[in-house]
């Protein structure tokens, strides 16, 4: 245990096992490990040894460390190492054997416990339960036979069986009550639907009274027709739902009750057909009237839509006129500076632009063509134009020149920030080599990339992690400000 077996011990073991001389065993063992090293040295990535595992060449990357004594950073160069993963069988062998050693007492105890009763009590204990089981099964079969056999004969017989017991009767009652409730709900729904229909048709009749004076006779009969329909539909709804539920789940007595109740309602329908024939004509009339009314409504809606569209068309030309002012936009650097110079104007825009548009419709037309070719403006200058054009409206041609001058000035202002940006970018590039103290993490950036960017190697990753005390260096949040060591 915990000894260090040397190569010689292994050779001895091989010689014992394979029944060969120690010299041969030694030579073989040397050759065995030599071949593995040779193949790995030759650049072979992995060597599989059956029964042992896989030797694999793994490259360890270079990393940066700090000299403890003087705090200087130095790079530990990368190297190749041999990694070994044991075969599944080896692990099983090791754990199986150990498990056997450790748990043998526990395992031995359990079989002993099992064996003892089997030896003594098996004949008595095992046979008895078998007999008992057989008896019980037979009993069960006998007991269950009448129940199980009779039930499948008829569905009704089964229902009778269920009803015969007091519990099942209660269940059936519950089911029946549920069915009743459903029926009631259905009836209510039907009534509601009918009420709605009546309302609609009354409305139709009123409309018809205005449009077609002849159809004044219709309403009364239509009402009748609606009334006739009402019981029809209600019974239709009730019959399937009520019958199905009652047939399936209720006893014969209750079925009769259900039928009686249902029969009362259908009795109304018997009267219906006679009326129906009369009302058919009025139905057709009402339908025609309905169609006419819908047509009228549609016509009115269409008129409204057209009116709206006309308004839209009136509005559109103002927009289309206003747009071309802005369209010839030069891609001059649209910068925040421009915005800041005209915040008041832009605020005015919201209130005055509406007015401006109205004015521009009439007045700005002649003005725009002049201004367009001279000063193409960036998009941010949009708000200015309407206000300026208003000024023009007040004092037409003199102000135009002033406006032009203004715009030229604005252009210069716009160019300046662009220059500034360029300067900034140059500043940044100048800063790079001098190493800023912090770095903001960008999307898709890793610490290795940051290290590569500022130090030229990816070996400083560890140093960055240490400096920032990063707990999860593989997952640095976006926008995280990293201190650079």
């Amino acid at each position, binding site marked *: 245990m915990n000894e260090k077996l040397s190569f010689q011990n*292994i050779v001895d073991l091989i010689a014992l096992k394979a029944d060969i001389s120690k010299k041969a065993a030694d030579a073989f063992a040397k050759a065995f490990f030599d071949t593995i090293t040779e193949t790995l040295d030759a650049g072979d990535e992995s060597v599989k040894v059956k*029964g042992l595992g896989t030797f694999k060449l793994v490259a360890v990357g270079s990393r940066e460390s700090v000299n403890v004594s003087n705090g200087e950073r130095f790079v530990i160069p990368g190297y190749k190492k041999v990694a*070994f993963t044991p075969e599944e069988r080896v692990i099983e062998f090791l754990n199986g054997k150990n498990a056997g050693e450790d748990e043998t007492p526990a395992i031995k105890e359990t079989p002993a416990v099992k064996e003892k009763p089997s030896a003594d009590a098996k004949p008595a204990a095992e046979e008895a339960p078998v007999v008992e089981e057989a008896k019980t099964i037979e009993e069960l079969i006998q007991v269950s036979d009448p129940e199980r056999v009779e039930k499948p004969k008829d569905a009704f017989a089964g229902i009778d069986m269920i009803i015969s017991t007091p519990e099942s009767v209660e269940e059936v009652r519950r089911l029946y009550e549920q069915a009743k409730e459903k029926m009631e709900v259905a009836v209510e729904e039907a009534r509601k639907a009918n009420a709605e229909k009546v309302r609609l048709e009354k409305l139709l009749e009123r409309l018809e009274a205005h449009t077609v004076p002849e159809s004044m006779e219709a309403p009364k009969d239509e009402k009748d027709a609606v009334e006739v329909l009402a019981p029809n539909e209600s019974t239709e709804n009730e019959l399937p739902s009520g019958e199905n539920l009652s047939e399936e789940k209720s006893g014969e007595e209750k079925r009769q009750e259900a039928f009686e109740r249902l029969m009362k309602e259908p009795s109304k329908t018997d009267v219906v057909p006679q009326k129906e024939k009369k009302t058919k004509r009025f139905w057709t009339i009402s339908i025609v009237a309905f169609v006419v009314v819908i047509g009228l409504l549609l016509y009115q809606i269409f008129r409204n839509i057209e009116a709206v569209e006309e308004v839209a068309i009136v509005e559109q030309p103002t927009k289309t006129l206003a747009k071309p002012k802005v369209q010839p936009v030069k891609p001059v650097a649209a910068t925040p500076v421009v915005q800041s110079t005209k915040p008041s104007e832009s605020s005015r825009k919201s209130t005055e632009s509406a007015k401006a548009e109205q004015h521009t419709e009439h007045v700005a037309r002649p003005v725009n063509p002049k201004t367009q070719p001279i000063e193409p403006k960036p998009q941010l200058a949009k708000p200015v134009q309407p206000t300026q054009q208003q000024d023009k409206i007040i004092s037409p041609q003199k102000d135009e020149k002033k406006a032009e001058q203004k715009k030229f000035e604005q252009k210069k202002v716009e160019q300046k920030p662009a220059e500034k940006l360029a300067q900034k970018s140059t500043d940044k590039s100048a800063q790079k080599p001098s190493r800023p103290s912090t770095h903001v993490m960008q999307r898709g950036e890793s610490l290795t990339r940051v290290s590569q960017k500022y130090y030229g190697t990816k070996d400083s990753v560890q140093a960055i992690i240490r400096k920032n005390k990063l707990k999860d260096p593989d997952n640095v949040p976006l926008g995280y400000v990293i201190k650079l060591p």
Partner: protein
Amino acid sequence: MTNKDLLEKLSRKTNFGMDEVKKLSSSLIDAVLEGISDGNSVSIQGFGSFEPREKASRKIYNPTTKTYMVVAPKKTVGYKMSAILKDRLNTK
């Protein structure tokens, strides 16, 4: 490199037949594993050392069943390559 390749190379080197090489290599592996399973470490000059390692039991979380399970402790073989081998592999 597969086991077969290794054995072929070995048989060429040692002038043993393939069957004999198989037998010898299996006996070699057995010898090493036996030594390890007895709790001994086996060091081979110029190659590295094999040693028994014990993995402690650990809790794992199954995200699908949302239950924690305990992985029983187990024993494996650890290998550490020798300094000689490291030098040989990294000096070119």
